[in-house]
């Protein structure tokens, strides 16, 4: 989606188990939900 919006050089960081031991851990496990850092650049 970022590339469709015109961004380039898209990078994605490693997954972070952000919901571990939180109330939402069940849903997170069911759908394999993790946090990620994203980096992209607007062409210049």
């Amino acid at each position, binding site marked *: 989606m970022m590339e469709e919006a015109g961004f380039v050089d898209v990078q994605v960081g490693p997954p972070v188990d952000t919901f571990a031991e939180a109330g939402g851990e069940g849903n997170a496990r069911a759908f394999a939900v993790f946090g990620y*850092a994203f980096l992209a650049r607007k062409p210049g």
Partner: protein
Amino acid sequence: MVNQEVVAGVSPVDPDALRDEVRAKYREVAVDPHGEFHFHTGRPLARRLGYDDAIVDSLPDAAVESFAGVANPFSLQPLAPGEKIVDIGSGGGFDCFVAAQQVGAEGRVVGIDMTEEMLGKSRQTAADMGFDHVEFRDGLIEEMPIEDGWADVVISNGVINLCPDKAQVFAEINRVLKPGGRLQYADIANGNPVPEAAVADIDLWTA
């Protein structure tokens, strides 16, 4: 490959109703940051997500306690001194205060949020800290109160997944960034498909 579209779906919910739901949830996080939520908050969360301890420890509790991000938007590249930053969905201001330390007094940081209680909290904290290069504006990230091409970097943390029209959000980010500017954000993404019925259940967007 991570999948961000499936987590939030392709706008199967009413945008205004979703905004009301999101405001209600994050109003709770602003006024009762130590309450029970389905996500972690505050200093324990910042530690879990790998933020720099020295920076987090230097911030007062009010700057950190309502933090509810999902990863670290500064982990792939730090900000540079003097850069102009926009934080979309700035909440209690935690990422803005981290950004403010990275860009220094020559930089500028503008946080945008739609929840009155979060704006009140972040503005008060910025004033208490004497951060006059940080400001917080009331607005929607689909229609940011930022001029064209102002920002060197747009940051965000756990917010874009809550917006039903992601194409509009990315188009708006593109508008406010300078040519060559960066988008550095953190968000959730799912590895397993989410059933359509779950995507259409507005309660599950913030649960």
